[in-house]
C-alpha cells in the first residue's frame, strides 16, 4: 500500500499557483522546473503561435498584453452577461468573447479559448512539474478554490482538471486547506481562524480541531477585496500625479497601464519590509506629435501606502469579525489565527488583525500553506490509516424557488456535508397538475438573484384546490459534494429527481470534444518531446566522439586495431548525422546506442594508451 499512486494537492491561485505532495508522512511543496515554488497563473500565446505558461508567460506580458491571460480565476464559471464580466471587460487588456451559452471565452492568438482550458494549461504545467519531480505519471489531484465559489465555478475548476488530464478527487476551500496544513504541522487542538487575503478575494474560516479531526464551523468573506484593490490604489495615485504633471491620462494606454500594474505590485511588496521605495518607469508614455517620451519617477513611503489603503485593510478585519460573530466564536476563544495570502504580509494588515483578534501565528508560509493543505487532504483520502479527517461544509445555501419569486432555503450555508433535508410544499394554484422545481444556490431571498443550478418538472398531480396537494422536496448532498434533488407527491408516491450538475460553462459534448482534440495533441506532443530529447542526446555524443578522434588516431598510430576502430567510428558518425534529420524515435535510439559504444571504446583506449605514454 505504500506504493499507491501519488496524489498531488494544487493551489490554483488568482496570481500564482503551487503544487504540493505528502511524502513519508510530511507535506512539501514541489518546485517547478525553473526551480521556483510559485508558478504564475498566466497563460499566453506568442505572435508565433507558441503557448507559454507560468514565468515565461508572465515575463512577456508587457509586450504582448492582448494575448496574455492573467487572473482568469476571477472569470471562471461566470456568465458572460454577469455584471462582473462586463466590468472586467473594461479593464482587462485581453479580449473576452461570449460563448454559445452565455459562457466566457478568451481570445488567445487566433482562436477563442474557454476558461477551463486556460486554467487547464496552468494545471497541466503543475502536473508536469510534479511528474518531473517524481519521475512517474500523476493523474489524481485535490484542488483548492475560494470558499465563496459556487457550484458552477467549482464544476469549471473540475473541468479544467479533466482537460489537464487530472482526476480531481475533491475540491476543497482554500482557508480550510490552510487550516489543515497549519493544524497538521502543529498538532493544534481547539478553534483556529484563518484569515486569507489573497490577490483577489478575502476568505475567513473558523475551524474546530481535535486530534486530527478538522471541523469547519463557519466560512465567509468578500469576493471583491484583495491585493489587486491595494495595487489599484497605488496606480490611481501614480496616475493622478502623472496627470497633474503632464496632463496625460495613462489609463488610456494599455501598455503603460500594464507597467504601472507591475510597478505598483512590486512597490507594495517591497514596502512590507522597507519604509520607502522608488518607482521608476522610464519612457512610460510617448506623446503623439513627436515630442520626447515621458518618464515616471516617484517615491512611495509605507506611511503613504497605509494612508491610501487603510479603509481596505480595515474592511477586511470587519468582515472577519462578522464571520466570527456568525460562528458565535469570540476572539478570546481562538487558539490560533492563521494568516494566509500574500497581502497578509503587509504590516498594516498584520497590526489590525493583532489589534482586533490576537497575535497571528508565525511560522507559516502564507503562499505555500494552501497547497500543503490540499496535499494533506489528498493523502488523508487515500491512506486508510490516516489520522486526518476533514468535516467540510456547504459554502452557500441551497433552496427552491417558490411562488412570488422568492427563495425557500432548505440547506443553509455552513452545513456539514454529507447532509439531507426534506420539506413539504403545497400547490399554489387551483387545479395545478404540474410543479416546477427550480434549484437555487445563494443567500438572497429573491429567487432571481441566486444562481439557478437546475430545474425539473413533477407532473401528473391530482386535480385539487390550491394547497391541497402536498409535495415532499428532498435535498441531498453526498460526501463528494454532489447535490441531488427529488420531489415526491405524498399521496400518489409519484416521484421525480435530478442530480444537479452545475455547468462550468462547457457542455458535456464540448468538454468531450476538447478532450478528444487534446488527446491527439497530447500524444503528438509527448512523442515529439521524446524525439527532441533523443536528438540532443545523439548530437552531444557525436560531438564527444568527434572530439576524441584526433587523439585516438595519434595514440593508436598505424596499428590494425586503430585503423579499424576509426573507420567504424567514422561510419557511425556519418549515419548518425543522417539519422538526426529523421523523427523516427527507434532509429534515433539505435544510433545513440551505437555512438555510446564507440565512445566507451575510445575512452578505454585513451585511458590505457594515454597512461602508458606518460
Amino acid at each position, binding site marked *: 500500500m505504500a506504493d499507491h499512486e501519488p496524489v498531488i494537492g494544487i493551489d490554483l491561485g488568482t496570481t500564482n499557483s503551487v503544487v504540493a505532495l505528502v511524502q513519508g508522512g510530511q507535506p512539501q511543496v514541489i518546485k517547478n522546473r525553473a526551480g521556483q515554488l510559485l508558478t504564475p497563473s498566466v497563460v499566453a500565446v506568442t505572435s508565433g503561435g507558441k503557448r507559454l505558461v507560468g514565468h515565461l508567460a508572465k515575463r512577456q506580458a508587457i509586450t504582448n498584453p492582448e494575448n496574455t491571460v492573467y487572473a482568469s480565476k476571477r472569470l471562471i464559471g461566470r456568465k458572460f452577461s454577469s455584471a462582473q464580466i462586463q466590468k472586467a471587460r473594461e479593464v482587462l487588456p485581453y479580449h473576452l468573447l461570449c460563448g454559445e451559452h452565455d459562457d466566457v471565452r478568451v481570445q488567445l492568438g487566433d482562436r477563442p479559448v474557454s476558461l477551463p482550458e486556460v486554467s487547464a494549461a496552468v494545471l497541466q504545467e503543475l502536473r508536469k512539474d510534479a511528474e518531473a519531480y517524481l519521475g512517474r505519471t500523476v493523474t489524481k489531484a485535490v484542488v483548492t478554490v475560494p470558499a465563496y465559489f459556487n457550484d458552477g465555478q467549482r464544476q469549471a475548476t473540475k473541468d479544467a482538471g479533466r482537460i489537464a488530464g487530472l482526476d480531481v478527487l475533491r475540491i476543497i476551500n482554500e482557508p480550510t486547506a490552510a487550516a489543515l496544513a497549519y493544524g497538521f504541522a502543529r498538532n493544534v487542538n481547539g478553534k483556529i481562524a484563518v484569515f486569507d487575503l489573497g490577490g483577489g478575494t478575502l476568505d475567513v474560516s473558523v475551524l474546530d480541531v481535535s486530534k*486530527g*479531526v478538522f471541523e469547519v464551523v463557519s466560512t465567509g468573506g468578500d469576493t471583491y477585496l484583495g491585493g489587486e484593490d491595494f495595487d489599484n490604489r497605488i496606480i490611481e495615485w501614480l496616475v493622478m500625479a502623472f496627470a497633474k504633471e503632464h496632463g496625460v491620462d495613462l489609463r488610456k494606454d494599455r501598455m503603460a497601464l500594464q507597467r504601472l500594474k507591475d510597478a505598483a505590485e512590486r512597490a507594495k511588496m517591497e514596502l512590507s519590509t522597507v519604509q520607502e521605495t522608488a518607482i521608476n518607469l522610464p519612457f512610460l508614455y510617448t506623446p503623439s506629435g513627436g515630442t520626447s517620451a515621458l518618464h515616471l519617477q516617484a517615491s512611495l513611503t509605507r506611511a503613504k501606502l497605509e494612508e491610501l489603503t487603510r479603509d481596505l485593510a480595515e474592511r477586511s478585519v470587519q468582515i472577519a469579525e462578522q464571520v466570527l460573530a456568525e460562528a458565535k466564536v469570540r476572539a478570546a476563544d481562538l487558539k490560533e489565527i492563521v494568516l494566509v495570502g500574500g497581502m497578509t504580509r503587509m504590516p498594516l494588515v498584520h497590526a489590525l488583525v493583532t489589534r482586533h483578534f490576537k497575535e497571528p501565528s508565525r511560522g507559516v508560509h502564507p503562499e505555500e500553506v494552501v497547497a500543503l493543505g490540499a496535499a494533506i487532504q489528498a493523502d488523508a*483520502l*487515500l491512506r486508510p490509516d490516516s489520522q486526518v*479527517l476533514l468535516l467540510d461544509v456547504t459554502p452557500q445555501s441551497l433552496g427552491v424557488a417558490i411562488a412570488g419569486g422568492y427563495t425557500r432555503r432548505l440547506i443553509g450555508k455552513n*452545513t456539514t456535508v*454529507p447532509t439531507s433535508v426534506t420539506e413539504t410544499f403545497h400547490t399554489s394554484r387551483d387545479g395545478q397538475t404540474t410543479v416546477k422545481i427550480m434549484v437555487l444556490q445563494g443567500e438572497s431571498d429573491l429567487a432571481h438573484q441566486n444562481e439557478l443550478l437546475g430545474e425539473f418538472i413533477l407532473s401528473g398531480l391530482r386535480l385539487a384546490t390550491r394547497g391541497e396537494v402536498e409535495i415532499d422536496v428532498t435535498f441531498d448532498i453526498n*460526501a463528494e459534494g454532489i447535490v441531488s434533488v427529488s420531489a415526491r407527491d405524498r399521496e400518489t408516491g409519484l416521484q421525480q429527481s435530478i442530480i444537479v450538475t452545475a455547468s462550468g460553462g462547457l457542455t458535456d459534448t464540448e468538454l468531450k470534444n476538447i478532450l478528444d482534440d487534446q488527446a491527439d495533441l497530447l500524444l503528438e506532443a509527448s512523442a515529439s518531446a521524446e524525439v527532441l530529447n533523443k536528438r540532443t542526446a545523439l548530437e552531444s555524443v557525436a560531438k564527444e566522439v568527434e572530439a576524441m578522434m584526433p587523439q585516438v588516431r595519434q595514440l593508436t598510430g598505424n596499428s590494425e586495431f586503430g585503423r579499424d576502430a576509426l573507420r567504424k567510428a567514422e561510419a557511425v558518425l556519418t549515419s548518425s548525422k543522417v539519422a538526426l534529420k529523421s523523427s523516427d524515435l527507434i532509429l534515433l535510439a539505435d544510433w545513440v546506442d551505437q555512438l555510446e559504444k564507440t565512445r566507451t571504446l575510445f575512452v578505454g583506449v585513451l585511458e590505457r594508451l594515454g597512461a602508458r605514454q606518460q
Partner: protein
Amino acid sequence: MLSENVPPNTDQEAALAEAVELPLDRKREILAREAALGEDHYAVLGLKPGATKQQVSAAYHEASRVFHPDRYFGKQLGSYQGRLERVFRRLAEAHATLVDDAKRDAYLKANPRLRVAAAAAGPVRPPTTEDAAARAAERRARLARHPYLARGAQAKTLVEEAKSQLQSGAPERALGLLHRAQQLDPRAKSSASVRSQAEAQKNAERAKAELAHARELAAAGDGAGALSAYREVLALEPSSHEAALAAAQMLFRTGTPAEARTFAQKAVDLRPDHVGSLVLLGTVCSLLGMNKVARRHLESALARDADNAEAKQLLKKLRWV
C-alpha cells in the same frame, strides 16, 4: 459471528454477508448505529442528557472518525455507502442541534423527558444576561423610591421641565425651575448646561429688546441715550454688528475718534466684508493720523465695492499726504 442473544435477523445477515471492502467488525458497528438512528440526539452520540457542548463536540468528532464516508474513500462499499451517509448525517444533525443554544433549547422544549433528565444531570446554568438585566431594572426602581434619593429624582424632573420651557422660548421660567432644582439637590450637575443655555437665551432676548430701544432713541435724536443703549446691547450680545457700527458712527459724529475707532474695529471684525464698516474705520483712522492703516482699510473697501465714492475720494486725498 453474530452474538447469541440477538435474534437472527435475515436483513442484517444479508448485509453482513455482502462482499464489500470493510472488515466484519466495522460492518457490525455500522449496522448497529444504523439501527439506532431513531434515538434522541444525546443517545445517538452515545451521551447522557445534559452533556456539555465540549462533550458533544468530542463525541461527534470521535464518531466521525469511524462513520464519515471519507474514511472509506475509493473503496467498494455497496449498500454501506448509503448506510454510512445516513449514520453520519444523523450524527451531524444531533451535533448541530446540541451545540447551538437556541436549537438545543427548542429541542429540549419539544422533548420534556430529556429536559427533565438534562436539568437533573446538567450543571447549574449561569444566569443569562436577560435575567440580569431584569434584576438590575428592578433594583433601580426600588432605590428611586427611597426618601433620600427621592429628592434627587424630584430635582431631575424639575430640570426636565426647565428644558421643555427652554424649548418653548421661556428662559426666565426655566431659570426659576433650575433654581428650585439646585436647592433640592445641590450636587446635581446635569442642570449646569441647561442653566447656561437658559442664560444665553435670556441675554439674547434682552439684547433684542435693548436694540429696538436704541433704534427708537436714535430716531428721536437722543444721541447720548442711544449710544448707551447700543453699548448695553454689545455687552449682552457681543456679536451684534449693527450695535457696534451704530455706536461707532455716533462716536465719530460726536467727535471722539479714538473711541469710535474701537467700535469701528469691532464692526469690521464681526463683518470683514461690510463696506460701510471698512470706510468708517478708514475715515476714523485717517483722522487719527494712522494713514497707512487707513489706506489699507479703504483699499479693501474698494476691492469689495469699486465705485464707493467716499472711499475713492478719501484715498486720493491720503495719497497726497
